[in-house]
């Protein structure tokens, strides 16, 4: 027979090794996790990445500054707007350009809509991984409405290419603000609906409370950002601590969790969607008039130097580090991806848990492989 012998890579123990992914329905793309299992208990987990590597950072070096923007769309492809925002931010910082108030407001609108869109995908897939099928469809319905708004603004739904160095390529189309307002007005009711399905659901709580716990100190040490950090109770949000695009004008809360488990991260993200709605409503209420583009040269040649700039993407801190030699192409453009750094904590979070929990933890980290592999 020999069947069982083949399953034993560690001859003197009962442990077995499983290659989880890269072709697996629950690894959100092409993540591969090498698991060492004792029965169903995880002894060790090793994320293996690189299946989506496209050499984006090298490609940046042969593009003009505005030409790099479409490439950023493809980093975290569920949140193109915040990627654009980080890239144009770093170039504006090294050039010392201030964007007009209306451009900032449009950026905030796009970024917050994008945050909601990204969180709806996260909720749908996370719930699907844990076995709840229906939320997936409900969340995607709302996401479609956001993508419609994006399409109306810039013609694209997923890879937006929606910002330029110095401002915005277009002003908002007629009636867009009304449609956006209609969307955000009905959205909190949808969130409440999803919460009714999940928040107090006994099975949902069994599957998420106390699963994938990471303490605040550990989360900081691993360099986690975004909801995984806030779920552990650390009040850290780039929009508050290093405000960009005039975020200081808006009144919003940073939701934090207490226990650092999957359930708290779930609650944090649900609340973040509501806070994003608040920001959008404020932004729409006092949308400034004026141009959407600052005076910038046609060919962008930032002065010699270096700059780092980061935004709060839906996944965490997304930063760009640019080195300019004064030419029209970046000498070096490095990405500080939120997902890549958040993923590193995975082995720490799943050790000793069961295979089913690995799925929950991958879901709760909300990783996108495009950003991890670049």
């Amino acid at each position, binding site marked *: 027979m020999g069947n069982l012998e083949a399953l034993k890579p560690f001859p003197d123990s009962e442990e077995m090794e499983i290659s989880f992914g890269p072709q697996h329905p629950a690894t959100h793309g092409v993540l591969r996790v090498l698991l060492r299992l004792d029965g169903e208990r995880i002894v060790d987990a090793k994320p293996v990445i690189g299946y989506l590597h496209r050499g984006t950072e090298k490609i940046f070096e042969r593009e003009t500054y505005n030409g790099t923007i479409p490439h950023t769309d493809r980093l975290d492809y569920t949140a193109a707007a915040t990627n654009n925002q980080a890239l144009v931010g770093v170039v504006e910082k090294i050039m010392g350009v201030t964007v007009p108030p209306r451009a900032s407001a449009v950026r905030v609108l796009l970024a917050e809509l994008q945050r909601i869109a990204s969180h709806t995908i996260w909720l749908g897939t996370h719930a699907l991984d*844990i076995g709840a*099928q229906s939320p997936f469809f409900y969340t995607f319905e709302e996401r479609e409405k956001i993508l419609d708004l994006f399409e109306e603004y810039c013609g694209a739904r997923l890879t937006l290419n929606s910002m330029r160095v110095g401002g915005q390529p277009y002003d908002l189309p007629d009636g867009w603000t009304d449609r956006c307002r209609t969307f955000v007005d009905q959205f909190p009711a949808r969130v409440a609906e999803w919460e009714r399905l999940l928040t107090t*659901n006994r099975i949902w709580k069994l599957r998420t409370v106390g699963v994938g716990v990471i303490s605040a100190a550990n989360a900081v040490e691993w360099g986690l950002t975004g909801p995984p950090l806030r779920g552990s109770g650390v009040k850290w949000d780039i929009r508050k601590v290093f405000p960009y695009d005039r975020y200081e004008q808006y009144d919003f809360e940073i939701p934090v969790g207490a226990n650092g488990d999957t359930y708290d991260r779930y609650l944090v993200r649900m609340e973040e969607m509501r806070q994003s709605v608040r920001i959008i409503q404020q932004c729409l209420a006092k949308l400034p008039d004026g141009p959407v583009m600052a005076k910038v040269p046609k060919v962008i040649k930032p002065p010699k130097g270096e700059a780092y700039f980061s935004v709060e993407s839906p996944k965490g801190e997304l930063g760009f580090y640019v080195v300019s030699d004064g030419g029209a192409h970046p000498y070096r453009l490095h990405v500080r991806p939120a997902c890549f750094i958040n993923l590193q904590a995975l082995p720490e979070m799943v050790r000793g848990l069961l295979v089913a929990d690995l799925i929950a933890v991958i879901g709760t980290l909300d990783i996108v492989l495009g950003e991890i592999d670049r």
Partner: protein
Amino acid sequence: MANPWVAFLLVPLIKIVVILLAVILIAAYMSFFERKILAYMQIRIGPNRVGPRGWLQPIADALKLLVKEDIVPARAEKFVYFLGPVLVVAPALLVFSVIPFGPAFKLFGYEVTPYLTDVNIGILFILGVSSVGVYGVILGGWASNNKFSMMGGLRSAAQLVSYEVPMGLSVVTVLLMANSLSLVKIVEAQKQAGVWYFIPGIVAFFIYFVCGVAETNRNPFDLPEAESELVAGFHTEYSGMKFAFYFLAEYANMVVVSSIATVLFLGGWLPPFPNWLAAVWALPALAWIPPIAWFVLKMAAFLFVYIWFRGTFPRYRFDQLMDLGWKVFIPVSLVNLMAVGLGVLLIGGK
């Protein structure tokens, strides 16, 4: 029944064919309704391309599976790999031989019973036969020589064995009340008692149905085939007709559990409130509905609940499932069994 050839060969053969066809069709259309109902729950439309409003979808699916290439993994245990689906589907269909769909009626002068046979140990037969299905699952998972299949097989073996205990205990409460193991007698006892057994046996009814959901590997207990964890569980490597057998068995088992729940707790083919309605005008009004229709209606209600579960609940984790079975359902069903036993003793068999 003058001619023994007719009585012992022809009539049973016709019944076997009819029941088998009906069950397979119900199982196939169950998948269609599941997709449709789930779709409406999830703001989708569901299959609507094949035939009018998608009604031929299950037929198309079956044809597709029939002509699909049957892949056997190179390092699979060939014979056991072949045995798996057979062992799963045969017991699932065999169980229908004792399920009474209605009372005896007259057709062309013959007395026809709409069930294959009425064994005096019917319930025992069902419990025994359906347990064999576990072998198909675990052997299929093991023989595929795939780690995910094997984990799925092991999970389901543990799950099925654990949930059979509370399920059996809840069935025993019905036996205490009905004083018989024969399914036909159990329904008749409910007629005499004038009350369906889910009222005195509400706890047992609940436990039976939940365990039934677990026994059929359905959401929220669908861990053996949890697609987000184990790809497709024990049938990951199966394709073509062998996969179709697993699929058919799953749906047939759902029909089995629903049928047994109908017989044991909802009075089988009886119209609702048999004696109470007889006193008022409603019974004649309902009399034209054939008993089989009542049976199918009740069964369909259970099947709908199955789908409803799937549209609503997340999935339990394996250890939580075990905890629920051993630490909640078994103690509760034991206590319930004693309570019902005491009740039967005091009231005198209802």
